[in-house]
């Protein structure tokens, strides 16, 4: 195969953008995904619409100092199985991703220097940035990447990367065995022995079973950090990495300490030391700690506390519009949710705008029950959602529930807006004859039942493309398919959408998917949140990221 240069679709894309067939945001995202550097993409955009790239405040960053951040300090021994966005906040400062999706939702190479995709989007060449060294002094190279990717895609690692890449990297293998409950034990293997191939010491080639556009964004999924193969996938104090920091101490659920390492290959580090402070599950305590200057910043602040912190003069406000949401998902293996008419009735009874306003006030925008956000490049606008409790009632009757249904909605205890949301849903459902009892469970207990509860509200983090969430949560048989949703039409449409580089064509496909989610899908979805937080004004270089990423090597702190 010849060396991959510029993706053949890029000239067309530039033309489409020039002709205003493709918006600025779509252009940036698609062009960078196809291998154009962010700088050139922004440059092109600037030429056409006169806008410069993201304006980076070029404030001088002082060196030295300690930053204290409030966050949950989880056990991070196994980054491969990390299950929240708070996990990588600690380990991703030490062990890094191949790519990075910025706050502008544009993905750029990080440990990679560049990538390039073949015309059919089935061959991806990942070029590693030369000159990167592990803390131990060994050069970082193709073998490290291959070891990590192979491990992340193995059943034994138990990583959610498997679900993300399964469609284009893996085959299912029936082991012929069954588990105690009579289910077949399915294992996975790379679809081709050369699926992950070493081209040279600094180049890895991925060969895909099916076309996929979002490979670089998948490489920024939070478990996909590059660990030293010699350490066998275990992370801990002193673990080897390529990052600007090394972890010196961790006391789970209390604190973790990072210290700067010299000779980082990229920008910074400026700070000598970063301390992550866990104040327990109590959101009020986070606010108190910020207000008393006991921490310099917080992972996230809930809307409930905005009015209070807004008054603190030493704090700066940061927000970002995201596709972060919570879906009230109906598990289709349970009655009455096995009937699509019931699922539709649950949606018809709800006015997302009202639920959104009650839950987050001005800090959210209404969603449309299909889990694709207006900020996603492939978002297709459907006809406005109309609430129709009478039709919902009729549908329930048609499905055999003329007297309505009684259901139990399981939600997490924290943050408290889950309860506000559930209360709003229950109030609106009532009109359609849906009697919902709200069951609040401690957060940890929720994760015991999130895959099995008949009706539950699950938080889904922002992801830069709409198809990523759809693939994680609704494709048949993937590990995070919490609603047990199975729909061959949906799977086919999603496969097709994932293989289309042209945003306009992809958008048509997305319209079909979104419509299908509204008509048949397993979720009630009412809002997209803005994420925000407060940092001390002395902190320089911070920006709220839609997946809560904090790139600590870019941060600095002014001495008071």
């Amino acid at each position, binding site marked *: 195969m010849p060396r991959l240069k510029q993706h053949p679709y890029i000239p067309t894309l530039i033309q489409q953008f020039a002709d205003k067939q493709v918006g600025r945001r779509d252009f940036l995202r698609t062009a960078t995904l196809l291998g154009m550097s962010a700088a050139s993409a922004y440059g092109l955009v600037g030429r056409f619409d006169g806008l410069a790239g993201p304006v980076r405040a070029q404030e001088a960053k002082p060196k030295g100092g300690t930053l204290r951040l409030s966050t949950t300090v989880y056990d991070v021994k196994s980054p491969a199985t990390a299950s929240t966005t708070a996990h990588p906040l600690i380990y991703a400062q030490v062990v890094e991703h191949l790519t990075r999706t910025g706050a502008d939702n544009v993905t750029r190479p990080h440990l990679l220097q560049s990538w390039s995709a073949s015309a059919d989007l089935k061959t991806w060449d990942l070029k590693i940035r030369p000159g990167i060294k592990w803390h131990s002094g060994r050069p970082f190279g193709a073998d490290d990447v291959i070891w990590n990717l192979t491990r992340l895609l193995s059943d034994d690692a138990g990583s959610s990367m498997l679900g993300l890449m399964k469609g284009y990297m893996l085959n299912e293998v029936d082991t012929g065995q069954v588990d105690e409950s009579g289910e077949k034990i399915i294992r996975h293997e790379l679809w081709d022995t050369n699926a992950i191939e070493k081209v040279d010491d600094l180049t890895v080639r991925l060969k895909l079973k099916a076309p996929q556009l979002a490979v670089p964004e998948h490489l920024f999924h939070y478990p996909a950090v590059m660990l030293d193969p010699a350490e066998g996938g275990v992370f801990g104090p002193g673990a080897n990495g390529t990052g600007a920091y090394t972890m010196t101490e961790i006391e789970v659920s209390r604190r973790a300490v990072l210290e700067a390492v010299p000779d980082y290959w990229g920008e910074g580090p400026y700070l000598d030391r970063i301390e992550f402070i866990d104040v327990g599950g109590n959101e009020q*305590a986070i606010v108190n700690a910020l207000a*008393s200057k006991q921490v310099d910043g917080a992972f996230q602040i809930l809307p409930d506390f905005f009015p209070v912190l807004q008054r603190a003069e030493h704090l700066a406000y940061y927000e970002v519009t995201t596709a972060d949401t919570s879906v009230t998902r109906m598990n289709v293996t349970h009655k009455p949710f096995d009937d699509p008419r019931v699922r539709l009735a649950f949606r018809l009874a709800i006015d997302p705008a009202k639920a959104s306003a009650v839950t987050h006030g001005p800090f959210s925008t209404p969603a449309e029950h299909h889990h694709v956000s207006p900020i996603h490049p492939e978002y297709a606008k459907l006809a406005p959602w109309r609430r129709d409790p009478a039709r919902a009632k009729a549908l329930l009757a048609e499905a055999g529930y003329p007297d309505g249904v009684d259901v139990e909605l399981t939600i997490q205890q924290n943050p408290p807006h889950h309860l506000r949301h559930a209360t709003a849903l229950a109030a609106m459902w009532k009109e359609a004859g849906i009697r919902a009892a709200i069951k609040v469970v401690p957060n940890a207990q929720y994760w015991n039942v999130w895959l099995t509860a008949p009706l539950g509200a699950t938080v889904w983090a922002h992801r830069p493309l709409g198809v990523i969430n759809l693939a994680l949560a609704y494709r048949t048989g993937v590990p995070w398919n919490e609603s047990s949703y199975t729909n061959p039409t949906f799977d086919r449409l999603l496969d097709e959408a994932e293989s289309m580089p042209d945003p306009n064509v992809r958008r048509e496909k997305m319209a079909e998917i979104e419509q299908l989610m509204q008509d048949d899908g397993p979720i009630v979805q009412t809002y997209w949140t803005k994420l925000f937080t407060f940092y001390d004004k002395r902190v320089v270089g911070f920006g709220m990221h839609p997946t809560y990423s904090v790139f600590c090597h870019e941060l600095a702190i002014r001495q008071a």
Partner: protein
Amino acid sequence: MISFILRRLAQFLVTLLVASFLLFAVTEFSPGNVASKILGPYAVQSQVDLLYDKLDLGAPLLERYGQWLGTLLGLSENRLGDPAIGLGLDDPRGVRYFGNLGYSLMLKEPVVDVLAQRIGHTVALAGWAIGFIVPISLVLGVMSGINAGRPLDRGISGVTVALTSLPEFVTAVVLLLLFSAVLGWLPGTSTLTQGDRWSGASQMVLPVSVLVIASASYVTRIVRASVADTLKRPFVRTARLKGLAPQRVILQHVLRNALIAPLTVILLQVNWILTGVVVVEAIFAYPGIGSLLLKAALFGDIYVVQALTLLALAVAVGTQFVGDVAYMLLDPKIRLR
């Protein structure tokens, strides 16, 4: 005397044993539950069943309790640490030692280590609280009691009734609002981490205050009732009639008699503080065993809950024992069975 203490000591041990059995029975009553709690949310049924067999959870409750007690006393091994089970739990002390409380499922560390990191903080919090509770309530209680019915007593009694009626979380929220949010005199959390701009002492003020307010107001009322009661007793009247100066009467006769009853109550406050710290530590993010207990319960970390309850039991039974002995020493008239 010695035989009395020995008899009480034996009772103390039996009580502890029975209580620990009840604790075990409640937390590990459902064996399937135990296995799935150990494995956590992402486990599949086959893994749960496998662990169920490996840990022999199908054995009768009494047998499992024996095993558990054996592990605790260092007579038998803790099977959870067996690498063959593959939970990645490891204890540098080995699998068999005295005081083996198992592993924290939440923190993936031996419970003994988890406790060691935190118990000191709680002892400090409780110690400071008791250090203030006892003198404050004695002084206020005696002042109120000897002035029973007068305005001073009315004032003290009114305030203490109101304060005992305030739940601690209310006191905590109000104090935080006032001293941290509005005045900015004190920090809003007490994580006691290194590098905090607030001193450790300043971080202690509010948590200790909440405990003191809740408990001292209660003890004050007990002391007041006891003093007022004693003053009505015939021997006080006799002493007064004999012409002893009122001050001497109070110091020598009344207090000696009046403070015996409150002694038990003060000892009971030690137990109460173990409950009190759960609320206070949770609100102030204080790194002690109270916040740990709450977190562990919410997580379903049975071994930490067991260990902390065991600790609370030992303290409760221990104070009962100390109370009985002290009671007897102070008041020779009392001869308990």
